[in-house]
């Protein structure tokens, strides 16, 4: 690069920097007030707009799968709170069926362990699992990196994000984490009520009381999960050979325990449970009301037999629907990165 051009560039960067600072750009991640401290250590992966953008492009790019047909988004779509729409068991490459239901992806910065059985110990490492699962994307990360090096866009995106165009596995994974960390859902009606900006209806309020009595030891506010592994008394489906947490912990007391899922945006993340066995919330409540295998559950909340009248069930569902966060479901900064990609194509 000629010296003159270089100076221009430096000047331009300086100006951009000052302007950026002056404009006070919205912070890239905010932990909502009164929420616990995030588990994810952002000091080890400092957020930047360029890295989040890169992660977002990756999340929507089928390049991560062997035959370039499946992206993260194929199983985690925004309008179902990043769960897998309609499929009880996730569909992967060549229509192979996985063994578990894809959970909603939100508030992941507060999650200590991932997957229904906690097999993944860090958000960064999560993307490796679907990429290399023969039933999902059936690809290897070293090969993905090679494929990306041959593209036009990725060297540029990595340059923008990390100051040089080197594509490494660690950078790839950390960028996907950055995008996933921004998936914060904290703008439901429930949140407005807690911030004294809205009020529950009588029905919702009654549902909230029932929820606090029966459900909140596991589905604990404000995340609506306490992130522990539990049995909620659903009968074991032996055909799936899925033993839950015990496969990771080797502690026999962990047999058939699964991570308590969040209930935020539950309206949109059907079907429910680790194997997607329940199609709607009415069936879920029927289970908690009369289907619990009291031999298997350890929680006293579930051993005591939840008895809800049909009106109470309706009220409880009305409350669960206040956990829907439309800002989250329609936030354009989470959607397909059309603008980023068209801008890149122009250069």
């Amino acid at each position, binding site marked *: 690069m000629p010296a003159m051009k270089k100076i221009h560039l430096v000047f331009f960067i300086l100006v951009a920097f000052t302007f950026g600072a002056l404009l006070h750009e919205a912070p890239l991640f905010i932990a909502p007030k009164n929420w616990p401290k995030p588990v994810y250590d952002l000091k*080890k992966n400092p957020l930047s707009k360029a890295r989040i953008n890169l992660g977002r492009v990756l999340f929507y790019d089928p390049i991560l799968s062997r035959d370039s047909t499946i992206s993260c988004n194929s199983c985690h779509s925004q309008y179902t709170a990043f769960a897998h729409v309609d499929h009880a068991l996730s569909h992967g490459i060549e229509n192979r069926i996985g063994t578990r239901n894809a959970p909603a992806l939100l508030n992941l910065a507060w999650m200590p362990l991932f997957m229904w059985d906690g097999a993944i110990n860090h*958000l960064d490492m999560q993307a*490796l699992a679907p*990429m290399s699962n023969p039933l999902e994307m059936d690809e290897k990360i070293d090969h993905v*990196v090679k494929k990306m090096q041959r593209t036009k866009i990725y060297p540029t995106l990595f340059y923008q994000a990390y100051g040089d165009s080197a594509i*490494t*596995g660690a950078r790839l994974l*950390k960028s996907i984490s950055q995008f996933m960390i921004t998936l914060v859902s904290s703008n439901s009606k429930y949140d407005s009520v807690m911030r004294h900006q809205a009020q529950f209806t009588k029905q919702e309020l009654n549902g909230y009381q029932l929820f606090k009595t029966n459900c909140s030891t596991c589905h604990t506010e404000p995340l609506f999960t306490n992130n522990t592994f539990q049995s909620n008394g659903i009968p074991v489906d032996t055909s799936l050979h899925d033993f839950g947490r015990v496969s990771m912990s*080797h502690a026999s007391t962990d047999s058939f325990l699964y991570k308590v899922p969040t209930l935020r945006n539950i309206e949109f993340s059907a079907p429910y449970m680790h194997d997607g066995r329940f199609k709607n919330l009415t069936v879920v409540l029927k289970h908690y009301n009369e289907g619990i295998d009291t031999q298997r559950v350890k929680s006293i909340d579930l051993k005591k037999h939840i008895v809800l009248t049909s009106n109470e069930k309706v009220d409880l569902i009305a409350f669960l629907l206040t956990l829907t966060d439309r800002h989250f479901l329609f936030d354009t900064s989470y959607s397909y990165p059309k603008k980023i990609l068209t801008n890149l194509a122009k250069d």
Partner: protein
Amino acid sequence: MSTRFLFLCCLWLNQIAAQTNTLPRLELKALYGSNNLQLDTFYKFHENDSIKFEMFRFYISGITLKQNSVTVGSDSNHAHLLDLSNPHSMQFALPASKNNSHTTKAHNQLEFYLGIDSLTNVSGALEGDLDPTKGMYWTWQSGYINLKLEGVSNLCNTRQHEFQFHLGGYLAPYSALQRIVIDIPNNDTVEINLDIKACIEEINLVKENLVMTPGEAAVRIAAIIAKNFKCQP
């Protein structure tokens, strides 16, 4: 300019180098009995059996140098991936970490770990030798694979008589990490040998030929390998 001046300069530079950064070089040799182990070569095993190794890769980490059990230097690189198919990876200088100034002190002991410690295992994506593209990270369950030993032997009643040992696991009770302490001479190059024949003789290949998950077997086999690291005096 006189050669003498240059010579003095060199001496001076040398001294700086010695002061600031290096511990001895480490050279690791994989042996089959008394020979250097070659990949993709059939060896005689027991009386009438044969064995061939196709992959041997492992991590060593936390290298420290001691004099009578007192640490005199530690490696600033957290972990090294050694790969028998890449001779460069089997020997390297140990850069001393910043916080120990007296790196040129005498030493008589080497301590290191075979594998990756649990803290590193839960630290997310890491660069360099620890990058997941190196193929030493489990994908379906988080954790580094501390060691991969793969090959073929007629003793294995498996597909194409293959054996595969992927040893790792950082969670109690099956932490596969092994601490190794070896007495070494006070030299600038430390040669460490690992006799794979001695290791594999302790494993019953007929019964045990695929170990791919954390568990009792992984811990036991890792311990067998760990105790066969020996210093070449």
